[in-house]
C-alpha cells in the first residue's frame, strides 16, 4: 500500500493563458497534501490541506475566484468524507468564508449533521470562530468579467459551456 494524493482543479475548458497556472497550482497542492502524509498526517488532513490551497488560488472556481451567481454574488459549496468512519460534513450556499472545505470538516467533526446551508452555515462558522472575510475578497476581476460576459444576449458559446461545469 502506497500513500498517495490526487487533486483536480475542475473539468471543462481551460483558456490557454490560464493552463500553465492551473497545472503548476494543482502540482503544488498535490505536493503539499503528500507532505502532510509523509509527516504522519491522515488522508483527511491531506485532502483538506490540498483543497484549501486550491481554494486560496484565484485561478480556480472555489474559494477566492469562485464564479458568481446571477446576482453577481459568491455562494460556495464543499464536502469532505472520511473512508474509515464514513463520517462526512458539507456546507452549501455559504458566503464570506475563505475556506469552505475547512468549514465542511468542522461540520463533520463538531456536529451530528451532514450538511449546513446558507445563513445556518454562516452562524455555525461564527460559532466556531471562523473569521468572516469580505465578500469582495473572494471576487476576482476574471470572475467578474465572465459574469458580465455571460449576462449579454448571444454570449460566447464556449464561455457558456465552461459555465455549465460546476
Amino acid at each position, binding site marked *: *500500500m*502506497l*500513500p*498517495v494524493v*490526487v*487533486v*483536480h*482543479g*475542475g*473539468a*471543462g*475548458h*481551460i483558456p490557454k493563458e490560464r*493552463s500553465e497556472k*492551473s*497545472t503548476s497550482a*494543482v*502540482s503544488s*497542492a*498535490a*505536493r503539499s497534501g503528500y507532505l502532510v*502524509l509523509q509527516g504522519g*498526517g*491522515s*488522508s*483527511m488532513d*491531506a*485532502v483538506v490541506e*490540498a*483543497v484549501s490551497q*486550491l*481554494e486560496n488560488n484565484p485561478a480556480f*472556481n*472555489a*474559494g477566492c*475566484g469562485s*464564479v458568481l451567481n*446571477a446576482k453577481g*454574488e459568491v455562494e*460556495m*459549496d*464543499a*464536502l*469532505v*468524507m*472520511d*473512508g*474509515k468512519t*464514513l463520517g462526512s460534513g*458539507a456546507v*452549501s450556499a455559504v458566503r464570506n468564508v475563505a475556506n*469552505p*472545505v475547512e468549514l*465542511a470538516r468542522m461540520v463533520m467533526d463538531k456536529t451530528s449533521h451532514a450538511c449546513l446551508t446558507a445563513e445556518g452555515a454562516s452562524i455555525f462558522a461564527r460559532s466556531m470562530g471562523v473569521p468572516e472575510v469580505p465578500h469582495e475578497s473572494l471576487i476576482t476581476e476574471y470572475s467578474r468579467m465572465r*459574469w458580465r460576459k*455571460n449576462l449579454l444576449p448571444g454570449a460566447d458559446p464556449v464561455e457558456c459551456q465552461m*459555465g*455549465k*461545469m*460546476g
Partner: protein
Amino acid sequence: TVGAVAVDMEGNVACATSTGGMLNKMEGRVGDTPCIGSGGYADNHSGAVSTTGHGETIMKVTLARLVLFYIEQGHSVEAASDMGLAYMKSRVGGLGGVVTVDPRGNWAARFSSLQMAWAAAQKDTLHYGLYVGE
C-alpha cells in the same frame, strides 16, 4: 470546482471537494459538490472519489458512488472511473471528471470534458496533466 482524494500510511482513504458552483447560477442553486455520493465519496472498503463537471447530471447518476460500485465489482480504478463517466455521458449527456484512489494506493485522474487540471503525488514522484492522455 477543486477536489482531492488521498490514501494515508494506514490505508485510510478520504475525499474533499469545493466549488463556487456554476457560472451565473440562480441564487440558491446547489449542485453535486456538497452531496454525499455525488461530489465525492470515501469508503475504506472500495476507495475515494472527488468529482467535477456538470453538477445536475453528476447528481442524477451519483457519480462518485457509481465509480466505487464499479471498483467493488472488480474493475481497476482507471476502468471504473471511465465507466462512471461514460455512463453519465450516455445516460444523461453530462461531461465531467474524477480523481479516484483505492485503499492500496492505486489512483486515476480521468475526464470526459475537454480538459481537467490534475496532479498526483506518490512515492516522491509527481504526475500531472491537463489534456486527455497526459
